[in-house]
């Protein structure tokens, strides 16, 4: 697998709503699209033993994650009639209430867009080497676990 094939999905900090809007807007020229499905992961301020999560600090084994994401993308395009797919994941600190994951699939028809989006989200959570340190206001932390 050559390095240039790998699309970067990571960026530092939260994913701004304006970035999501720009991404949606860019698809208005693709008039074969009939449906978009979007998943957004937002940092949840869970209360754990009376302490609230203030932010999550994300880290990844990036080279491995991008190779894995490449394979997931290939498999999803193989399986569904998609026009396009975009994936963005935060690294570094993301405050509670901010967006850390953005998965965006588009297709002529809604079923393909919706199912591809769901499957991509599930695979990202299960297969990408990404970790999250849940930071409390008092500077203690615990490691996030996906359910």
């Amino acid at each position, binding site marked *: 697998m050559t390095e240039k094939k790998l699309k970067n999905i990571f960026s530092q900090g939260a994913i701004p709503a304006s970035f999501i809007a720009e991404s949606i807007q860019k698809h208005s020229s693709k008039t074969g699209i009939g449906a978009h499905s979007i998943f957004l*992961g937002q940092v949840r301020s869970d209360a754990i033993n009376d302490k609230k999560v203030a932010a999550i600090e994300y880290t990844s*084994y990036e080279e491995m994650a991008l190779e894995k994401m490449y394979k997931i993308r290939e498999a999803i395009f193989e399986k569904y009639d998609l026009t396009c797919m975009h994936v963005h994941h935060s690294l570094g600190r993301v405050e509670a209430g901010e967006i*850390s*994951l953005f998965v965006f699939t588009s297709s002529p028809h809604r079923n393909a867009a919706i199912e591809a989006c769901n499957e991509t989200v599930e695979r990202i959570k299960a*297969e990408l080497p990404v*970790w*999250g*340190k849940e930071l409390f206001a008092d500077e203690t932390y615990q490691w996030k676990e996906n359910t």
Partner: protein
Amino acid sequence: MQVNVIAFGQITDITGRSTITVNDVTDTNELIQKLHSLYPALANTKYVIAVDKQIINENMLLENNNTVALLPPYAGG
């Protein structure tokens, strides 16, 4: 022979560092034994290992300059 070990997530709390160079190990079983003797808390920690970005489930011979990653459960999203 030298192997580059990289630790992620909660494993870095145990190792105190993200990269560790280990010499004179011939396979992954031997590497894991060595790491567990260096960092006993690893034995009680859930993780998988990847050799040059490929997850392995069985013992594997190591080559010079292999990169072995210690991967605790993923928590992306």
